[in-house]
């Protein structure tokens, strides 16, 4: 199956080289990554490991300095890339930055959500339909919220409105930078249910997060450390069977830590079951192993 994202040897650094700083520090180096269509990929790593930079490169906001970055048949790293190609790219690959609710600017919610598709020439009834679908995908009733003032919304509602503005572009690839940061647990869970719905609809979703439980929901996780990609694998493989998250300065979910601790103590955890992070089934496994 053809990957929708294919990165080879991707490199990025900020600033222009000059005679005082011939080699600006690399924020990303040697990144090789392939992502399939409709995959849900988690991007994890300590703060400063390059997650945000990667997402912004994929979105076409930053251009790679070296390497290859093929996204939906367009190589973003091509030095001869044209503005028009970038515009077309950004229509299909859309990013929601951190704390998107801080960037709402239209007075009314409906207008703000419409901003994106309107920029690409959608208008009239088609535009209204897009706005409606996007808002409902985020759980905001179109009729109730479209004429609400953006500054009258609660924090959680504002975030939903901001994300609806991104969804209204109907991207093929959706990039989310810490989408649930600052949300209370129920809102975060609701958000991830909707993200999974999008994935069911065929959208490829990449999201960065510090919450290891969210990582468990992903198909695979990409572990970043100091600008390098240490590994891409299923969450189970990474957390239960490897030390890679620790190398990246990350704390695996408690289930994984307990599981490994028990294995170190020589406890035979049942082999036929894949380890689960659900505490109740972990308890069952522990009880089984101890008796």
């Amino acid at each position: 199956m053809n990957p929708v994202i294919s990165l080879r040897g991707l490199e990025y650094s900020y600033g222009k080289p000059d005679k005082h700083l011939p080699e600006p520090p690399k924020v990303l180096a040697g990144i090789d990554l392939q992502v399939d269509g409709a995959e849900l990929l988690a991007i994890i790593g300590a703060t400063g490991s390059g997650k945000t930079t990667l997402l912004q490169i994929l979105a076409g906001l930053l251009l790679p300095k070296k390497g290859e970055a093929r996204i939906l048949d367009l190589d973003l790293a091509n030095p001869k890339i044209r503005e028009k190609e970038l515009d077309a790219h950004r229509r299909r690959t859309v990013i929601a930055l951190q704390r998107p609710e801080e960037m709402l600017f239209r007075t009314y919610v409906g207008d703000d959500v419409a901003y994106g598709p309107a920029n690409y020439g959608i208008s009239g009834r088609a535009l209204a339909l897009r706005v409606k679908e996007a808002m409902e995908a985020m759980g905001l009733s179109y009729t109730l919220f479209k004429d609400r003032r953006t500054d009258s919304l609660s924090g959680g509602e504002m975030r939903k409105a901001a994300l609806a503005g991104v969804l209204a572009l109907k991207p093929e690839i959706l990039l989310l930078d810490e989408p649930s940061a600052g949300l209370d647990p129920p809102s975060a869970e609701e958000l991830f249910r909707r993200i999974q719905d999008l994935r069911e609809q065929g959208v490829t979703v990449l999201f960065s997060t510090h919450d290891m439980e969210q990582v468990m929901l992903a198909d695979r996780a990409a572990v970043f450390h100091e600008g390098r990609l240490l590994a891409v694998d299923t969450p189970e493989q990474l957390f239960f069977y490897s030390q890679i998250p620790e190398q990246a300065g990350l704390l695996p979910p408690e289930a994984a830590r307990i599981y490994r601790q028990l294995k170190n103590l020589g406890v035979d955890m049942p082999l036929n079951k894949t380890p689960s992070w659900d505490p109740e089934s972990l308890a069952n496994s522990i009880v089984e192993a101890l008796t």
Partner: protein
Amino acid sequence: MRDFGSFGGGFDLFRRQASSGSLGQLHPGVKAAGLIVGVGTISLINSASGLLFILCCLLVAAGSTGLSAPRLLRPLLPVTPFLVLVVLLHGLTRSSSPGEALLSRGDILPMLIMSLRIITLMGWIGLSSAAVTTPEVSYGIEALFSPLERFGFPAGELGLIATVTFRFIPFLREESERLAKAQTARGGSLGFRSANPFRRMKAALPTMVPLFIGTLRRAEVLAESMHLRGYREKQSRIRLHRYPVKLQDLLWSAAGAAVLAAAVCMQYADTDARLVRELINSISSFRGVAV
């Protein structure tokens, strides 16, 4: 190709470099006074020879503290094309009567003065910037105006305003970058490249509103934090850092004052006119000899 990687150009003013030698050791009040008086004088003087004199003394002073001319002027480089344009326009628009040529001999001296003024200003600010750190600017302003406090002049507040302003500059830069990226991600950059200047301005508007609101909100949060940390207006505060006035402060102040005073004298002594006459005489006598 437009990439957000070097947004804002890098605010390099007032970051003291290691090699600022004896100038860097001066009392911040002296530095602040030097900056203000120097900028004022250079802006008002109308004598090419005066400006040239100041410029030469500047370069000597810079050299003596280990700063070469290029290093001095580097922070102000981004503005250069704009300034060249200003000088040119100045010369072109000076002609008073319609019969005169667009650029006549009478325009040369004012254009020269303007160029010298700009270069000298850049040099003076560059030198100050190399010798002063941001906290010293605030302290310097406070120290400078503190004798006026007995008349009710809020020197302490002024210093604090400077401090907080410096704190806000990185915030403004980052916020506008974030907003610009968010707009671009939703197709907003299309307006930025329109041929119609009104369309371009209209495209920039979405970033203004959230920036303004964000800044106000941030200022409010900061004011509240300051209040909770005990800040009350109109109280004298003993500051942590203290700078004793040393002999070199007096020497450099005297030297600086002398240089500026000499330049002013040159203006009143009409040195320019004299030099030009001398120049014309020597050219014609030279010609006379050759013939």
